[in-house]
């Protein structure tokens, strides 16, 4: 349970770092020595105490600084928030779901008092306290999805379900791995997954869609996705490519362990009750290769996964430029000993 929030940055001087506890609970995504796309969706049930899946929405030591970084990005580029008019019911669903969950799971930080439709929300870490009428947008200073989307770590996309598919019809997206909300807004499932190599041929996308169309309220699901990012930068958006794209040229054999970060997305999907929309949450966790290597098991596994990675995936994930340096750097930790299946650090 988090009691203190760190003051740190995800841009310019990059003072972000993980404590020992944060390293230990990092959602390492590789249970086996080889990686390939699969429909790796599982029920989003309560995980072990202290794990990132203990609660529906994980609040960790980076909470305050991440929310601040999100605020900066939204101020600089208001297009990172989009919501089509027919998504208003889904917006209120989102607000209720996040407020209920945070106030129940972290009562020392958040509180929600419901007096009929008049609700009072208090967010102590961010110093927010507001009273509003549920369902009446004029009683909040911003749209309900923007309001709570700014107070929870991670990105959120609200998917409308119609015509046997899902449409990305609302989103607050500030920590994305090189995809654009402004570009994807209003697109259907097949349209926005079009660029993913190999997965379509494997039938992964069609099967995942079929599964999600039947997603039930009260039975959310999750999966992990990953890539690598240079520096602990949340906002690796195509819009801001000039500010981070070039960083890939700065990696060398000396600094690779510090600069290259494994970027893991804990993706969760919840059916929203009133709107029948689906909330897609993408929570980003960053860790440097050096911090991963504090656990030999993880270093060995990561080395094997990267060494055998399909070239199309290396290219798609934008790692081509520095990938050989990563494999070389990790090689020294790998004694070839066999590892049991599993993602645990030791």
């Amino acid at each position: 349970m988090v009691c203190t929030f760190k003051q740190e940055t995800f841009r310019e001087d990059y003072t972000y770092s993980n404590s020992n506890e944060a390293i230990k609970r990092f959602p390492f995504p590789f249970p086996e020595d080889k990686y390939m796309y699969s429909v790796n969706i599982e029920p989003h049930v309560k995980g072990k105490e202290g794990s990132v899946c203990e609660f529906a929405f994980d609040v960790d030591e980076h909470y305050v600084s991440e929310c601040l970084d999100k605020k900066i990005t939204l101020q600089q580029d208001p297009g990172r928030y989009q919501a089509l008019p027919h998504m208003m019911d889904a917006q209120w669903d989102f607000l209720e779901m996040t407020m209920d969950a945070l106030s129940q799971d972290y009562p020392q930080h958040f509180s929600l008092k419901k007096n009929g439709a008049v609700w009072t929300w208090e967010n102590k870490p961010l110093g927010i306290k507001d009273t509003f009428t549920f369902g009446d947008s004029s009683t909040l200073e911003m749209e309900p999805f923007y309001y709570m989307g700014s107070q929870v770590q991670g990105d959120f996309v609200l998917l409308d379900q119609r015509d046997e598919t899902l449409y990305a019809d609302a989103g607050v997206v500030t920590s994305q791995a090189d995809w654009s909300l402004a570009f994807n807004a209003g697109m259907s499932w097949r349209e926005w997954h079009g660029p993913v190599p190999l997965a379509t041929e494997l039938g992964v996308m069609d099967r995942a869609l079929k599964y999600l169309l039947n997603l039930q309220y009260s039975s959310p699901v999750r999966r992990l996705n990953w890539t690598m990012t240079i520096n602990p930068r949340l906002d690796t958006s195509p819009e801001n490519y000039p500010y981070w794209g070039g960083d890939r040229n700065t990696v060398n054999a000396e600094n690779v362990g510090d600069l290259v970060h494994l970027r893991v997305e804990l993706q969760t999907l919840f059916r929203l009750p009133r709107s029948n929309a689906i909330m897609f949450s993408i929570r980003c966790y960053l860790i440097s290769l050096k911090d991963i290597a504090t656990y030999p098991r993880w270093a060995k596994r990561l080395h094997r996964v990267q060494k055998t990675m399909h070239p199309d995936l290396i290219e798609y994930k934008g790692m081509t430029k520095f990938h050989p340096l990563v494999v070389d750097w990790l090689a020294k930790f790998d004694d070839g000993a066999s590892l049991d299946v599993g993602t645990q650090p030791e």
Partner: protein
Amino acid sequence: MSMIDVKVAAVEQVTPLVKHFTFVKADGSTLPPFSGGSHVVISMDIGGRVHRNPYSLMGSPLATDAYHISVRKQEHSRGGSVFMHEHVSVGMPMKITYPVNLFALAKKAHKHILIAGGIGITPFMSQIADLERLGADYELHYAFRSAEHGAFVAQLEKICGRRLHCYIDDQGKRLDLETLLASQPLGTHVYVCGPGSMVTAVLETARNLGWPERHIHNEQFLSPPVGEPFNIQLAKSNIEIEVPADMSMLEAIEAAGVEADYLCRGGVCGRCELDVLESDGAILHNDHFLTDTEKVSCKKIMPCVSRAKGKRLLIDL
């Protein structure tokens, strides 16, 4: 599958054939909110055998103190509707699933035409609450046999006002689908729930008039049909099960203690789909989910409503 414990708070005879049931949460707390057009699946213990039937939720999705359903007593019931009519009484504990919506309103529609036949009015009862709240443009066309069979008409008149159009069969008032569907503005969606003949007529008329497929919606839960008994073999569980004449394949699998996925149990949602590894006879596909090509291939079966003929049906379960 997670279930909600409820108890029966009220039972009311609405028409000679329809009863209305009110459920509240067993622990007194509120029920989850839902969206217009949702249904729940009710578990019934009928002489030690578990029946599970889907019923549409009625009433406003925002009123979460109670859920409302209505059940028509079916002439050829396998037991579910008769059980609801004859054995369910106030105070009785029951188990229901969380709401699922397979008949959702198209939120971007410019206008909604709702067409109900008889007990098919039930999913529209929650949809009109959503449409009224959103200030949407809609018409409700409700056809029934005779005045005494017109369930909820007084309530509908109050909610819908001039948007309600009733067609009472024995008064000679018929719904002219051709005229209704030919005169709608672009961007209109049509929804139908009722007897099979009515659903077919609406689908055909709309298609013939050139309505886009995506603007035509229907909900038609099928009851698992009674048929010949047959045997199935489960590959992973390595057991053989007999499916009796009056039980669905899904029910027989569950009765054998094997866990199988399901949602609607009415041949609509696709969740219970099973892979057929081998079969030596015909598969009687009764569902609305598989495509015609899939049905012909005999590689898949929806065990909630479909059956088989033959000695061997090896299932990947």
